[in-house]
């Protein structure tokens, strides 16, 4: 599964488990405007770390903070490339 597909799969799992109603997961979606709260974020970061061994949030600059789902995917993409390099 690609990183993008995994991330979306995890978001869907977490929101289902947490009973959150989510709009369609498009790249433009601003996650913080949805029911995806800080605990959901924390779960997502932990699960992505378990699956890929990367945690881009632990070394994040303010300017890099993801706003949209597309930003989040890009952040993980960069982190995974940096990890592979």
């Amino acid at each position, binding site marked *: 599964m690609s990183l993008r597909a995994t991330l979306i799969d995890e978001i869907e799992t977490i929101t289902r488990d947490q009973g959150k109603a989510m709009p369609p997961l498009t790249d433009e979606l601003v996650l913080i405007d949805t029911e995806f709260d*800080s*605990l959901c974020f*924390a*779960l997502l*970061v*932990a699960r992505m770390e378990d699956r890929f061994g990367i945690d881009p*949030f632990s070394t*994040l600059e303010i300017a890099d903070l993801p706003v949209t789902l597309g930003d989040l995917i890009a952040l993980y993409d960069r982190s995974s490339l940096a990890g592979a390099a």
Partner: protein
Amino acid sequence: MNLRARLHRHGGLDGVRLADRTASHAVAELVKAPADREMAQRLAGRSILLATEGQMAAAKAMLVLDGLARRMLLLPPGIAPEQLPAIVRDAEIDLLVTDRDGPLRETLPDLPCITVQAASGAAPAAAPLATEWVLATSGTSGAPKLVLHTLEGLVGGINTAATPEPGTVWSTFYDIRRYGGLQVFLRAMLGPASLLLSEAGEPVSDYLRRVAAAPVTHLLGTPSHWRMALMSSAIGALSPRYVRLSGEIADQAILDALRAAFPRARIAHAYASTEGGVGFTVEDGREGFPAGLIGSRAGIEIAIRGGTLHIRSQRTARRYLGSEAGPLMDPDGFVDSGDRVALRGDRCHFLGRSSGMINVGGVKVQPEEVETVINRHPSVSMARVKPRPNPILGAVVEAEILLHDGQEAVADPAALKAAIIAHCRAHLDRHKVPVSLSFVTDLPLTPGGKLLRTPS
């Protein structure tokens, strides 16, 4: 009255034995007045560090030294030699009684020394002292705390008026050089009744086979000890009349499992600690304790202050030793147990240690509460919950799980993990549900038999 005099007062020591893996002694022989008056003089009034390899030597020495020594520090196993000079200084030790050499002696080159063998032959004190008993608590880090008790306080929770049922044999997973085990040693000796000692490093099944063969009637341990025992093939051979748990939270799962394993036994969970002494015992088979125990009863007062259980009684320790040690009790004499409790209806429940809390984005999570829920899942033998650093919330919860049947027997580990998480979600606030689970083959216990918690 000192220990030896109490035993003599009983007289009826016929058949009362003290046994371990390799030896069995008649207690009457151990306390019959030996003739070594010179040894008694050498021990009289001294502050003694009792450092023995095994429990039997410690037991023999305790019977003789109580009443002779000014102070007796029971060195538990597992104390690093480099910690000894500070212990000796803080407890003002002036004599070592030991059967050990090597690093122990090398770290204390200037301390006079008598062998346990020689000391155990000492005559009773001409003028018995109220010997101070000092226990070293196994802290999670740093130097052990030295906790001073009196014999009167240590035995305050023991009913010495009742004659033990014939054939009573006590045993415990605990080491008698720590508070829980010392209680069992004193209960047996003051009964008087026989006692079978456990041994460090002995496989649980081997110990349980000795327990079954004795046969032991009164068996004590922590909930973690019992969870291990219930996984042993030897458990079926046991037929205790009295089963007692203390030292950790006894959750409903372990109480129910013990009830199922021993349908005819009295099953008691007790609340006791090195500092707070024996608090109370509950025998109704339900986790927690009746709210009615809060308040004053004969000999003990229990209060909840700042969410933790406080105890005031003659059974608590008197003080800590050492110039840097803080006060053991509040100015009004209450000892803060550090055990967090919550009142729910007519029942008080233990939440866990105040020091072990996990902070999940400001939500306080008590590992023990999560463990209690996980332990109720039918596949789970025991769980350990700990914090996992998380960049969003500071920490989240994760759990390590020991399964009943071993993880090899699980056809679909991912499905079982999902089922356990779903079980947690049904019973816990969402911040308390573990983010991740791992199945482990072993969960280490502390030397005191409690689940080892990594300091967070």
